[in-house]
């Protein structure tokens, strides 16, 4: 996917004209695991809604697999089945009487018959780690984390090539959060789908993604690996973000004279780094 000079302007020509996206140039390679961070109102949600054609850029072009999605005759419907979008609190959109029926809705809408749709649903539900015993139950009897997994399965069942998730872990307990993120990592690893994760948790982003896009005031502020992005923790703070706790720790240790590398962004990296330094004494 490629975004070329994309602008999105609210109320163009009126006194309230406002750029929600400003001159966005991005290339998203196949199979990447990307995190999008930014404070509330920075343009993250507007950005991802452009990626599957829910919002149309005021100016600029978006290419999917080399095709201009705004070209005449381009099927937005097809784009949306290739680029799956999981909204915030997707469990609010569950509506069917059974879990299986709910997950079948997407593939049946794509024109698959019941059997083929159910096969897809089984596969999707398995890949989000939901026990088969539950498939015939009402989705409304599940816990928050389980409901969310059903909702994600509903999008996965459409076999998207790109999966975009808007804060998929908001409101979940730590275990539920880890379960969802681990499952996404597994999907990425085993099925090679491209994942774009919008998140408010710097710790989660640092742990899972290979590339971070930082949004601020409708523009891309940074677009780099977690290590390189979190190096700018001071700048991130000025736009309402932060670095993971361990990154701060490494900086502070360094100031106190410990010869640690300040690049660590996860607990594991910090641990290795501190152990290396402490063992120099032995």
């Amino acid at each position, binding site marked *: 996917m490629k975004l070329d000079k994309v602008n999105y302007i609210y109320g163009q020509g009126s006194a309230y004209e406002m750029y929600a996206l400003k001159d966005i140039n991005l290339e998203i390679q196949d199979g990447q695991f990307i995190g999008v961070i930014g404070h509330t109102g920075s343009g993250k949600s507007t950005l991802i809604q452009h990626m599957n054609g829910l919002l149309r850029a005021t100016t600029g072009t978006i290419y999917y697999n080399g095709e201009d999605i705004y070209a005449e005759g381009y099927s937005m419907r097809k784009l949306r089945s290739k680029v799956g979008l999981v909204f915030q609190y997707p469990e609010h959109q569950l509506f069917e009487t059974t879990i299986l029926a709910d997950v079948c809705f997407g593939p049946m809408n794509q024109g698959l018959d019941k059997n083929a749709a159910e096969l897809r649903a089984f596969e999707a539900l398995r890949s989000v780690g939901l026990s088969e015993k539950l498939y015939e139950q009402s989705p409304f009897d599940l816990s928050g984390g389980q409901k969310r997994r059903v909702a994600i399965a509903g999008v996965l069942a459409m076999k998207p090539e790109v999966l975009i998730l808007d804060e998929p872990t*908001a409101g979940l307990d730590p*275990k539920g959060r*880890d379960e969802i993120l681990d499952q996404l990592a597994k999907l990425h690893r085993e099925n090679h789908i491209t994942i774009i994760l919008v998140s408010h948790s710097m710790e989660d982003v640092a742990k899972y993604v290979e590339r971070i896009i930082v949004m601020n005031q409708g523009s891309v502020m940074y677009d780099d690996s977690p290590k390189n992005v979190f190096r700018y923790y001071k700048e991130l703070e000025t736009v*309402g973000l932060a670095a993971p706790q361990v990154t701060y720790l490494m900086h502070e240790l360094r100031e106190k004279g410990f010869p640690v590398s300040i690049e660590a962004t996860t607990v594991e990296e910090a641990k290795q780094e*501190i152990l290396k330094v*402490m063992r120099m004494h032995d």
Partner: protein
Amino acid sequence: MTSLMVKARQLVHEYIRRDEEGNPIATHTALDHVDIDIKPGSFVAILGHNGSGKSTLAKHLNVLLNPTEGTLWVDGKDTSDADNLWKIRQNTGMVFQNPDNQIIGSIVEEDVGFGPENIGVPTDEIWQRVEDSLKAVGMLKYRSHSPNKLSGGQKQRVAIAGVVAMQPKCIVLDEPTAMLDPNGRKEVLKTVHELNKKKGVTIILITHYMEEVTDADYVYVMDSGAVVMQGTPREIFSRVDSLKAHRMDVPQITLLAHELKKAGLDLPDGILTREELIEALEKLNESFKGRNTLCQ
């Protein structure tokens, strides 16, 4: 005699599911013989996974629910006595997860004044309370703004001001930061701590963010409707493995210290902050240096 702000004894709540004719078909025990003591002016955090009973407990504190069994006293008043209902609700303010569901006024100060007006506070005093509470949450300069132009953290602070304007003795916050960005989370936490310290308001904070708990006076961990762990943050976070068994986590720094200790570094249990970890590492470093000099 100093009475407790909240006292629960063997508190039970059962949700009853009914079929279309209204016959009960299943019961679910959301609170299972809970004992809780919360002192006036303290800052207490309640942790627990989704569905552990935290929010059910919060609803009891504000008498949105009544006990199936057991007794709950809020500020010395039994919540099952209907005569106490309004007194308790005035004394116990609630703040919920989604700021957009809690704000009703079209201007910040009107929203904050809604509560006091509703209970018949004289007009002059309403304005005084609005000003005081907006000041307390650091939102005074936005008093004539429209709430829908504010950030999530700012909206949540307005929601808190609306509760503060009722002059409650106790504020219950049910995952107030779940939908906020890091800055919003920081703003809200700072506000709540200030209310606790400066105004002496008892704070009961329900959260999934372990980092928000480190400054609390006391922590309760719930699982399957029961209190399964309780103690100071340091006591609770020293038990990394039991917390994980209850689907909880520890702050990132505590986890790192725990991992370092497992790898053989001689660190104390229950390290909560970066400062503490740095201090412990420095001490360790000194002792290594001391030992090396002795060897030479």
